């Protein structure tokens, strides 16, 4: 799960990481009060979870689709600006009135931020972060993340900050420093100072930079983060260091010891159907563009099912890993979400039971067909634990369903059903 920049900066501040003066606002009076306090020169930043914000565009909802198409087709000509006519997600302003002119369209209920990463609908803007502008002498990059292969934290830093680190890595890999962290030692300030020195930070700022790195590492540990990224942190012309951006991703698996991260979560940034799937506790759901609704157990098999459908010329409407299903009502809930998706023309259920028992899945499918009055063609492939009972349950129920034992055959049936529409819905495989 990602959190907002303003939240990341509140956490930074509480950990002793210097951030610009300012804060999040959602209405004009708050904005005006804050601007009087920190003005006149400010940065106005839309708070969204999506990446590509600065080069994205703040637009009315009804223009989102068109602007998204333009951004994809010709980014150079249509990307958002920090000053100028095309409003991006990050804007510079001078004085209260000018700043409010940037604030209003961002906080308008009808506005969306559209970037190359948001899709054609864009995302709503949850708040606006207004901060003092900083006098920047140099921009740097810093991040801590988990290096899976080595099983330890990895710090990445660069003196070429303020741009995509992937791009720096492509064009000038020697400018990207990688510092593996010994998890027992952690990242004490002296290691931070040594990194600051390697980055060429001037002697007078090395102590402050070393402390900042050590404190960012503490954020990583305290938050159970998968990523803490500051791009850029800057050396100001006064010679201090300052985190002027901040990104924190937390590990959903650690939510149990952080009160579910409820304090940091913003559901308005998430896909409503994905939230519904989570609340129904039916595993991991991701909406996609096709028309074959998929219910699969296991992330690997779910991806492989999508791969097989596409190799047969079909398009999945979603990714859904229902995990280990040992209760039939969860199958019904999963199918409710699939059936309510207007894009779904065919439903493909592919369950290979290990921990999951496929006879229970079969009972859930029968319940769902009766309860939800499913009209779309249904293709079911069952295998694994208790498969004979599962097939018997389906057969004895008399519901309209096509079945196949093997993945390839089942996928072919699903694609054929999706392409020929509802006419085949009563045929039995």
């Amino acid at each position, binding site marked *: 799960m990602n959190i907002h920049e303003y939240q990341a900066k509140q956490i930074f501040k509480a950990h002793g990481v210097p951030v610009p003066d300012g804060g999040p606002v959602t209405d004009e009076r708050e904005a005006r009060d804050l601007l009087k306090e920190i003005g006149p020169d400010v940065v106005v930043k839309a708070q969204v979870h999506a990446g590509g914000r600065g080069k994205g565009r703040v637009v009315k909802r009804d223009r989102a689709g068109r602007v998204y198409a333009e951004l994809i087709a010709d980014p150079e000509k249509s990307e958002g600006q920090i000053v100028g006519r095309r409003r991006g997600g990050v804007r510079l302003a001078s004085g209260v009135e000018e700043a409010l002119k940037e604030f209003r369209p961002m906080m308008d209920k009808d506005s969306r931020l559209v970037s190359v*990463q948001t899709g054609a609908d864009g995302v709503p803007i949850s708040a606006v972060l207004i901060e003092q502008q900083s006098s920047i002498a140099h921009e740097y990059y810093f991040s801590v993340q*988990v290096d*899976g*292969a080595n*099983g*330890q*934290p990895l710090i990445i830093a660069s003196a070429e900050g303020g741009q995509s680190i*992937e791009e720096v890595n492509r064009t000038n890999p020697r400018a990207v420093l990688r510092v593996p962290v010994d*998890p*027992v030692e952690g990242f004490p300030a002296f290691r931070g100072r040594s990194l600051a020195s390697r980055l060429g930070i001037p002697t007078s700022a090395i102590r402050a930079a070393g402390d900042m790195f050590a404190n960012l590492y503490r954020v990583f*540990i305290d938050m*159970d983060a*998968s990523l803490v990224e500051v791009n850029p942190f800057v050396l100001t012309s006064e010679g201090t260091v300052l985190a002027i951006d901040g990104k924190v991703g937390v*590990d959903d*698996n*650690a939510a*149990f*010891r952080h009160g579910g991260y409820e304090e940091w979560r913003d559901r308005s940034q998430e896909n409503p159907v994905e939230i519904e799937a989570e609340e129904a506790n039916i*595993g*991991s759901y*991701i909406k*996609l563009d096709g028309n074959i609704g998929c219910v*699969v*157990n*296991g*992330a*690997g*098999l*779910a*991806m*492989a*099912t*999508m*791969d*097989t459908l*596409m*190799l047969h010329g079909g398009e*999945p409407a979603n*990714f859904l*890993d229902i*995990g280990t299903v040992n209760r039939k009502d969860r199958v019904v809930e999963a199918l409710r979400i699939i059936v309510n998706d207007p894009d779904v023309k065919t439903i493909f259920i592919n369950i*290979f*039971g*290990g*921990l999951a028992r496929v006879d229970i899945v079969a009972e859930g499918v029968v319940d769902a067909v009766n309860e939800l009055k499913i009209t779309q063609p249904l293709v079911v492939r069952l*295998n*694994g*634990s208790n*498969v004979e009972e599962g097939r018997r349950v389906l057969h004895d129920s008399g519901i309209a369903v096509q079945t196949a034992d*093997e*993945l*390839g055959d089942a*996928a072919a049936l699903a694609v054929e059903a999706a392409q020929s529409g509802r006419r085949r819905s009563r045929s039995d495989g």
Partner: protein
Amino acid sequence: MSILLNNRTRLLIQGLGNEGQNQIRRSLDYGTTVVAGVHPGFRGGDTFNHGSHEFPVYPTVVEAVSKTRANCSIIYVPAPGAADAILENIAAEVPLIVCITEGVPVHDMIRVRTALEGSKSRLIGPNCPGIIQPASQCRVGIHPPDVFMPGNVGVVSRSGTLVYEAVDQLTRAGIGQSTCVGVGGDPIIGEQQQAILRRFQSDPDTDAVVLIGEIGGLAEQAAAAYIKRSMTKPVVAFIAGATAPPGRRMGHAGAIIEGEAGTAEAKIKALEEAGAVISRSPAEIGSTMRRVLEEAGKYQPPGAVEQA
């Protein structure tokens, strides 16, 4: 006998909740030797019974190991306590630890990996289906036993359900399995694909290997480098997620596309260049392996491998 397990494997089960109990019953039915349970405050008293099978239940791993000489642990402990359970097994010097649990926090796994350094233990998982060896009837995991058959092909996979899928295809194609290992789908795991390939390469009971990877991470590239450098046995590979939209998370925490290297195409290319035979479709893993074995003169009809 093949890798990791054999007919001298003495299994300890940690976590005798409902699911742990269900699974250990199926392992006992399959023929696996289970010598001890560990479950502090176990409601069933100090023994676990299933039909004619019975094993003692202890509050700690160290006690279970000293009394029963268990040499392999299977962990079904829920996520908040899973890392603690792994650490307990490392401290008790259990040689092989298999952790099934899904949802272990990644920071906990950093501690586990640190503890594994220089220890006497090897870890498989977490978030994995475990290991199964049909010839010695040894099931250390959550597999549906019926689809497995003894034979000469090893299977290694990040995904659990794709182990079952691949094995089902192999069995239907008349190909048995030596050992099947699910290494797990999380960002930090114990042994990775490359380490398992090395074990298969030096195993006289394995003639070829199915390698199943997925998008995200660099583990398949490491596996490809090993295949190129040292592997003489044929490898058939499938990478799941070729059609996944970039940047979206697909359930496995490890399956995030990181730049170019995490894509299915990059992994397929690395494996192809290393000499692996790629099955583009997940539905053709079995038929591809059958062809590869026949070309190598290593195809053994079912029944050719004796039960241990």
